Every structure is written in structure tokens, then in C-alpha cells.
């Protein structure tokens, strides 16, 4: 890892020595740090996708929350487009908010049940108080782009299926034309067919808006299929990075080997049966 202070130019996202500790436990229990993130470094070049893979509880979603400043990291730097936003106050952070968006794991919970589809999607515009007049057309355009019919705009969230809510969350994230989208397990928990549809949608959107993705997932198969580079996270540290091919073919670190092994078993079982398939 090069550690020059020079501001990395082509890297749109560069994280250096990121640390974050939680103190879990109540007053009469001694405080125990949990899913600490210590000394994490990675970079993503514009228009590409980096996947953070790790077992549950390895601190990968904490990293995501620190990068998008939903939570303030204890120390370290997060360079977005050439500025370190790790220590910015929330007011100076405002311009960066539109460039950096996060999509949460379970889409249903990340939307206020009282809202209609339009209210959910236009919320970013409301907050940033932008384009007041053509808010409705922008919502219709984006809903169309993510594959939802705009005339469902005024239906309440309850009437949408899991897959459709995921699409709505994506539409909301793209409302401010972000450059970087962080997907925190955005595809886990979906049926295979819906998962495939959302994955294709992500690829199309990346190509159409030249987006940079930071994908957080525990499913190696999905990650290697969607991401250019993969970083393996274990107990809050990045233990290995490489392109999807490198990771799949020659895993170096023990954790990666374990992940790849369990992925391989499933693969070989399927492949052996279907070797003669068309």
C-alpha cells in the first residue's frame, strides 16, 4: 500500500488507516469493543466496483458506514474526489452528500412505512431543496429507469414487493446523481431471479451513469460476478485484495481460502451435474 500524502488523483475513493471502535455492554458490564475497524486501507478507481467480502460480524458494514459518514470514524482519512471527508463537520459535508450514496441491507426498513413511493424517492431532493419544480418528472424518470411503472408513484410502500422496494431504494439513491454508491448487502435475502434482475440493473446503471460501487456482501459468487476487485475483510482488517479472478484462483490468506473453498464446493457440485447441460 503506498502511503504518500499526495492526494491520489485517479482514485475516486481512497481510504487510509480507518479506525472505528464500538463500546458495547451496559453500565454494570465492563465495556467490550465490538466489530472494531482498525487500520483499513483500500482504493476504488472511478467507474469500477470494489467488493468487500467477509463473514457476518467482520466489520464490513461498519467500514461502509464510516465511508459514507453515516458514522464518524475514530481516525483515518476518507478521500472522496480529492477531499478528506473523514473529519468534516456535517455542514461542510453537505456538498459531498450528493456525491456519495448508501443503499441499505433490507430495503423495507430503509423506507418510512407512512410514505408513498414518490415521497420516498423525492426525499433527497426535499432535503437538499433542489429542483423544486420538476421533482415529479425526475421521480417518474428514475422510477422508469429502475424498472418500476411511474403510475405506481402514489402507492404506499406496503403495496410493493421485496424486489420492487429494492429498486425504489436504488432510484432514491440515484436521485442526486451520485458518483459513488455504497451497497450494504443490497442483494442478500432476495430470491435468485429477483437478485439477478437487480444485479443486471446495477450493471446497467453503472454503465449508464459511470457510477463507482462499493459492494458489501458475504456471498462470494455474487461479488465476484459484479465486482472488478475484491477485498476480503476479517475482524475489521482487510487481509487480502485482488481482482475477482485472482481471489478465486489463488487465495493467499487463510480467511480467503476458507471463503473460496466453501464457494468452490457448491460450484463443483453444481458444475459436475450440469457438465453435460446445453
Amino acid at each position, binding site marked *: 500500500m503506498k502511503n504518500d500524502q499526495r492526494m491520489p488523483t485517479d482514485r475516486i475513493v481512497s481510504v487510509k488507516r480507518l479506525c472505528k471502535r464500538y463500546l458495547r455492554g451496559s453500565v454494570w458490564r465492563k465495556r467490550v469493543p465490538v466489530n472494531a475497524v482498525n487500520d483499513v486501507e483500500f482504493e476504488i478507481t472511478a467507474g469500477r*466496483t470494489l467488493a468487500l467480502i467477509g*463473514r*457476518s460480524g467482520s466489520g464490513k458494514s461498519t467500514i461502509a458506514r464510516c465511508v459514507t459518514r453515516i458514522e464518524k470514524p475514530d481516525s483515518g482519512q476518507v478521500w472522496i474526489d480529492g477531499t478528506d471527508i473523514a473529519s468534516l463537520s456535517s455542514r461542510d459535508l453537505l456538498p459531498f452528500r450528493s456525491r456519495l450514496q448508501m443503499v441499505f441491507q433490507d430495503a423495507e426498513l430503509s423506507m418510512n412505512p407512512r410514505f408513498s413511493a414518490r415521497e420516498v424517492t423525492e426525499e433527497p431532493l426535499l432535503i437538499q431543496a433542489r429542483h423544486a419544480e420538476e421533482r415529479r418528472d425526475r421521480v417518474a424518470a428514475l422510477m422508469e429507469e429502475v424498472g418500476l411503472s411511474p403510475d405506481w408513484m402514489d402507492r404506499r410502500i406496503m403495496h410493493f*414487493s*421485496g*424486489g*420492487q422496494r429494492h429498486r425504489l431504494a436504488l432510484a432514491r439513491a440515484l436521485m442526486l446523481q451520485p458518483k459513488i454508491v455504497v451497497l450494504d448487502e443490497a442483494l442478500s*435475502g432476495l*430470491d*435468485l*431471479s*429477483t437478485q*439477478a*434482475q437487480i*444485479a*443486471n440493473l446495477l*450493471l446497467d446503471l453503472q454503465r449508464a451513469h459511470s457510477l463507482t460501487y462499493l459492494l458489501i456482501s*458475504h*456471498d*462470494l*459468487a455474487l461479488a*465476484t*460476478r*459484479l*465486482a*472488478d476487485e475484491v477485498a476480503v475483510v476479517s475482524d475489521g482488517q482487510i487481509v487480502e485484495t485482488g481482482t*475477482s*479472478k485472482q481471489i*478465486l484462483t489463488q487465495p493467499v490468506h487463510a480467511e480467503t481460502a*476458507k*471463503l473460496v473453498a*466453501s*464457494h468452490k*464446493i*457448491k*460450484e463443483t*457440485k*453444481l*458444475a*459436475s*451435474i*450440469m457438465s*453435460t*447441460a446445453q
Partner: protein
Amino acid sequence: MIYALKGAGQVHALDNVSLQIDSGETVGILGESGSGKTTLAKAIMRMLPANATCSGGEILIDNRDLLKLPETELHTIRGRAIAMIPQDPALCLNPVITVGCQILEVLRAHVLLSSKARKVRVLELLREVGFEHPAKIASAYPHQLSGGQRQRVTIAQAISCCPSLVIADEPTSKLDATLEGETIDLLSGIRRQHRTALLVITHDPGVLAGWVDRIAVMYAGRIIEIGDTKQVLRKPFHPYTQALVQLARSSDHNKTRLPTIKGNAPNPTDVSVGCRFEPRCSEGMERCKVAYPTVSAPESDRQVSCFKYEK
């Protein structure tokens, strides 16, 4: 024919579903959310919610029909003849009772053993599901265990009275990749030792590949294809199965678009006459819209209900 109504208006959760599981055989049910696979599992256990009614057919366990059994005698069957591994292990253990006691409870309900023998049996079970030092686990409380460990405890509970059929409802959906492998090995290991029949319900064909004997594919409350695992995965007949299998086969070249099924899941409330997959089917024919395809057997012990194979 099990025909269950649920919620506002009539929702045909299960429609004309018939399935045979021989003793010691493992059958996988493959279906996406809303295909009625969980309802089938609940129906077998007679655990359907209050607003669901079975309007026909029967459920035979060692040729005793469950539907005819009165409610009071049911608890002799549940846990003894059929046991269920719940979908979300994190929630399915009582937070205020030690793990050992919860397994003890199941034994107490069915097996006539002295309390000492029961304790020994509990430790045996815990060792069998892969805990190195079962004594520590037995005295622990559920909130002190990890997700994977809790899953293994629920499995131990299910197999405690050597039931003739164990139903595993989405055993791997809540776990991450590595734990999924361990759970599958555990389940197939149990099947060999206890000679119990296993009904595994999942939406991912990868989970079933390699260890499940037969697969039944469900779509919108109906079984659309049944057959030996290898043959079904190698040469799926029904277009829906073909698409599902194609999806599961992950090709290594990345960043390419994945094959998908167009349209989205069927709406359970609308009762269309024709084949429910017709709107999303690439080989949809006129006939499909009008009538529901009857079951045909293009190959030995393979069944599919699609007009493509109907003579």
C-alpha cells in the same frame, strides 16, 4: 389436493399438490418466495394460521392421516413423527431457558427416559451436531451463542426423538456462505446416521445439488416438476426450472449480464385459468393461456406439467 385460503380475499396458497417421500429419502422443494413452499411445510405439520383451511386431500405419515387427527393428539405426532427446523434460528430459541433444557423439553414430551438418561442424551445430541464441549453449550443461554451455533441447536432439537421425517425450512438463507456449507454437511450427515426422511425447502438450487435425492419445483402454489436431482439439474424440462438452474450456474467471467426471467412473481390473489408461468414463459403457447397443463412423464420417474411435453 390442499387448497388453503389466507388473508383478505381468497389466496390459493397451495393448489393440487401431491408429494411422496419414502423413508430415508431426501426431497428438496425448490421455489421462490410466494410459491407456497413454506405453506406446504406448515400444512404438513398442521401449523397453518387460523384463517387457512385445508379443503381436501390428506397427509399420510406412516399411513396415518394427519388431517383427520383431532388437535389434542397432534402433539404426539409433532416432534415424534415429524420435526421442523425453523427458518430463522436466532428467534426460535426461548431466551430465558438454557439451551440444554430446551432440548430436554422435547425429550420429556416424547421419550420415556430417566432424567439422568435424558441429560446424557442431550449431551450426545449436542456432540452429534458438532459441538466440541457440549456441557458448556448446554448450560449457556441462547443470547450467548452465535447464529450458526443456534442453528445447530435447533437441528439437535429436531432430531432428538429420531422422527421419521424432518422438514428444514430454508436452513441456509439466514447464514453466510461458510456456515451454509457446514449446515448442509451436518444435514446430510444426520440423514445417513438416523435414516430419517428429509424435506429441504430452499430457493437456491445450489443448496440442493449433490446430496438431495429428488427435487420438486414449485411455482405459484403448484408443483410443476418432480424428478431425480441429477436429471432435473442436468436436463430440466419445465422452462421455469431451466431458468432457475441457469441462474444458479455462476459462470466465472464477471461483469456480464446474468440470465433472468422477465416479469416478476405471480400475484397470489388472481386466479387465472391457464398456466401461472405463462406470462413469463419464453415458450408460451396459446394453449397455456387457456387451460392448466396436466402432469406428463417424458422420462422414467420424471413428472412435469407443461404443454411442451403433452402429446
